[in-house]
């Protein structure tokens, strides 16, 4: 049996397809990297307050994590896109809708907050793996709680967690594909449009697949480099 399919790879280099691919690639990378930066900051903060002594802070952290982790990302995207603006006061809603790139901003918001909940959980498990004596040592030396986390606990926990954090970093690239549902022109949406215009689905989705594979491969290489660089001499074995 032979495949009846007329391959046309060069077409990908022609406009408008070339343009769509470039735009899609840029949006995917932008969205993922920006969301990752925000998710990391919020996630470290939320994960840390869940480990503090204050019941109030722990409660806030727990509510955050359970809320954002237990609703499917797709539903969260729709809620942010369709429901959230309706809940704003009228003037605010109007100015929100008038912002440029509303789909992109909404996608960034949703993806960041969702991923932050997952990062927070990794941070929390990283922190609980740190021996109690480290907290005692830092506390007894007169560091404040904030200084203790800032200089001792989080840098230590972060090194232990690099592999899990890396896999979360990969996930954010793949999750960014869902944002096509609210109209973000990322790479999957570019592939979908190319397929719809040209009926060349294999070429179109190959581009998307290769994009994800190369970006995630880059992340894997980067995180491996980081892991090696931050390796604690004598403690975490060389590979």
């Amino acid at each position, binding site marked *: 049996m032979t495949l009846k399919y007329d391959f046309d790879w060069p077409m990908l280099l022609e406009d408008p397809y070339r343009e769509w691919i470039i735009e899609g690639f840029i949006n995917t990378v932008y969205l993922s990297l920006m969301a990752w930066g925000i998710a990391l900051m919020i996630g470290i903060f939320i994960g840390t307050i869940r480990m503090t002594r204050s019941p109030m802070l722990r409660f806030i952290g727990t509510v955050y994590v359970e809320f954002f982790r237990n609703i499917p990302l797709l539903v969260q995207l729709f809620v942010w896109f369709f429901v959230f603006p309706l809940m704003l006061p009228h003037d605010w809603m109007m100015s929100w809708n008038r912002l440029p790139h509303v789909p992109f901003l909404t996608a960034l918001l949703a993806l960041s907050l969702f991923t932050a909940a997952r990062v927070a959980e990794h941070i929390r498990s990283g922190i609980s793996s740190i021996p109690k004596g480290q907290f005692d040592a830092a*506390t007894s030396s007169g560091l404040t709680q904030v200084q203790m986390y800032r200089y001792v606990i989080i*840098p230590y926990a972060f090194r232990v967690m690099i592999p899990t954090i890396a896999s979360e970093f990969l996930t954010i690239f793949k999750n960014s594909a869902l944002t096509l549902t609210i109209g973000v022109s990322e790479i999957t949406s570019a592939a979908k449009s190319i397929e719809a215009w040209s009926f060349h689905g294999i070429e179109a989705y190959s581009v998307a697949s290769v994009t994800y594979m190369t970006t995630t491969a880059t992340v894997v290489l980067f995180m491996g480099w980081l892991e090696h660089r931050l390796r604690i001499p*004598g403690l975490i074995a060389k590979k």
Partner: protein
Amino acid sequence: MTDPLVDIRDLSLWYEKFKALDNISTSFSSGRCVVICGPSGSGKSSLLRCINRLEEFQEGDVLFEGQSLRECPNIAALRSNIGMVFQHFELYPHMSILDNITLAPRHAKGKSKADAEALAHTLLERVDIADQAKKYPAELSGGQQQRAAIARALALEPKLMLFDEPTSALDPEMIVEVLRVMRDLAKDGMTMLVVTHEMVFAREVSDEIIFMDDGKIVERKETDDFFSNPHSKRAQDFLDRILMKI
């Protein structure tokens, strides 16, 4: 200087339902080295950990230089005057020895980086590991790590040093190098409270011995007196057992 340096008043500590410290009252003067001994579970470490409020005690109070720990508005600042050394060293594994030592002086005491590093180098020399400053904790032997930890505690320029079983996790030959550092500290007039099972150290170095059992201070005596003439039956039994071992 306020005397006594540490004043403990009717101190009780519970872990859930277990009463770890039972209504303890005692005090410690500057310049003295006091060894706290007793069977395991007797509350030695708990008592030590109450003195910088690492344990939140439920009853009574501890006064450090006359300042109540219970009502202390800035407990972190108070702690930065008390050095503490732990059984398992607790050096920060992701920092070099130098960074371990300069962290608290810089961030808790507001020293400049240069001042803190100069102090660190002096202290490393004092504990005889001047050449290890750039290494990481896991690259050092146990004895070296504990001496680095002592240097880290001394970098606070403390008025009091607390030692919580500092040699219990070490091999015999490393114990000697750590005890030697501690002996020199005591000779230089550092105020020290030492929880330890090293009775030879206690006899040679300490000024006083406290014997604890069941969360209470059973006996407190000048060192020579304690060894030659222990008052309580429990202290006698404890000494017999411990000295028999040697």
